[in-house]
């Protein structure tokens, strides 16, 4: 998609975000925007806060009682942390895929139908259609269409992860968050998922945390470099990997420190 033609709509606006676990400050005054239909990568060494930060976007940090967040998180211009904002609604619009594939111990069909069923969709035909289209979008349909009722645990690691992606897609989200989605997978599965991400970005906004810099270089449009809870640099991926502005960014991506 030509950059000029791409609608540079902003999906997330984050302003002056600070995050505390009791007294420990994990995120220090970060401001950034996430653009629509782009792949935004978060990179940085262990403990830099990138996984914590991505969980702000779908309010998974709410599950941690000691966690406190200040600042503005605007999802499509609405305050996502407002008391009146429905968290369930947010999470169905902002899906998440985790590092370790976590399919439910149910059939493949039931895994994908889980989300829609929770939303109240009961009609079998509608569910069938959702399952099929989600699996197709996740490039998994051809491999499992003949055994939808088999347990999801019988799939390989790469297939399970694509199943998790399909499960998220079934909710018809606008944003898909991915927290190191391929770090537990073999290179072939990793490539398949990277190809998939490339296709998905036409329909969804994708934010991916990765510790694999080549992956960030390969698939992302914009890259954000985190260090010790701060956002050091956030720019077009081309810029970051050809001529980053900050020495720390340069040192990290050339591997001078990790």
């Amino acid at each position, binding site marked *: 998609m030509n950059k000029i033609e791409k609608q540079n709509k902003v999906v997330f606006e984050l302003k002056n975000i600070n995050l505390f676990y009791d007294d420990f400050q994990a995120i220090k005054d970060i401001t950034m925007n996430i653009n629509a239909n782009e792949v935004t990568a978060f990179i940085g060494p262990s403990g830099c806060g990138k996984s914590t930060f991505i969980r702000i976007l779908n309010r998974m940090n709410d599950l941690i009682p000691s966690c406190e967040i200040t600042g503005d998180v605007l999802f499509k211009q609405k305050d996502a942390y407002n008391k009146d904002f429905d968290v369930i609604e947010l999470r169905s619009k902002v899906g998440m895929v985790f590092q370790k594939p976590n399919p439910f111990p149910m059939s493949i069909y039931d895994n994908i139908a889980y989300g829609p069923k929770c939303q109240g969709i009961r009609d079998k035909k509608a569910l069938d259609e959702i399952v099929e289209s989600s699996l197709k979008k996740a490039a998994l349909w051809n491999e499992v269409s003949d055994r939808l009722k088999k347990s999801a645990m019988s799939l390989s690691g790469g297939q399970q992860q694509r199943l998790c992606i399909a499960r998220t897609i079934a909710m018809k989200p606008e944003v898909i968050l991915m927290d190191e989605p391929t770090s537990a997978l073999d290179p072939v599965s990793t490539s398949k998922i990277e190809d998939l991400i490339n296709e998905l970005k036409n329909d969804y906004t994708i934010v991916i945390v990765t510790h694999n*810099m*080549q992956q960030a*270089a390969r698939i992302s449009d914009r890259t954000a470099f985190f260090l010790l809870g701060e956002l050091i640099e956030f720019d077009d991926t*081309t*810029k970051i*990997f*050809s*001529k*980053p502005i900050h020495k720390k960014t*340069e040192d990290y*991506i*050339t*591997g*001078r*420190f*990790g």
Partner: protein
Amino acid sequence: MTLRQTLQNSIEGLKKDVANMADLALKNLRDSLLAFKTEDLELANKVIKVDDEVDMFEEEIAKQAIKIIWKEQPVASDLRLVTGILKLITDLERIGDHATDIAEMTLHLDKTRNLRVLPITTKMAEAVEFMVLESIKALVKVDEVKAKEVIAKDDEVDTLFQNLIDKMTSELKNDKIEANEAIYVLMVAKYFERVGDHAVNIAEWIIFMNQGTHKNTSLF
């Protein structure tokens, strides 16, 4: 904490090799200029032989650079350095070739020489030698400022060359020198001018190594 020792060692090795290749090319160039000035036929022959070494250097450095690319997947400054080096060794090798050309000219030139043309060519030779020396210094330090000086100096060389052409033309018209002598001198001067251009190319790649832009075009 500095990591990726292999990458760092490889890059240091690469830079050393390029510096050595540049030194060799420069020395050969100086020898060819000296041989031309003093009509030293033995030196001229030596220059022609040494150029083989310069060629081998180019292959070797290219090999090292390609290895770094597939092995280490360099990014940012490392990437700019390696790709810049890959490009500028071509120009270094061409400078080496021109040294050979000048040496061969020396072997062909008549003993009788109109000394009047020497000042310009000497000036050209000095300017060009300066450009190559400075470009190598700029390369070793990736010094953008020095590189820009090298590029600026090329105007002087071009002017001198134009002067020489004018001078040759007038001298020929006035029958003051032999035609074949004029041709040889002009050809040597042309080689000088080409060496200057190559020095400019090297300087431009040094700027790329710093900025990521080559002749004001971003290559990323």
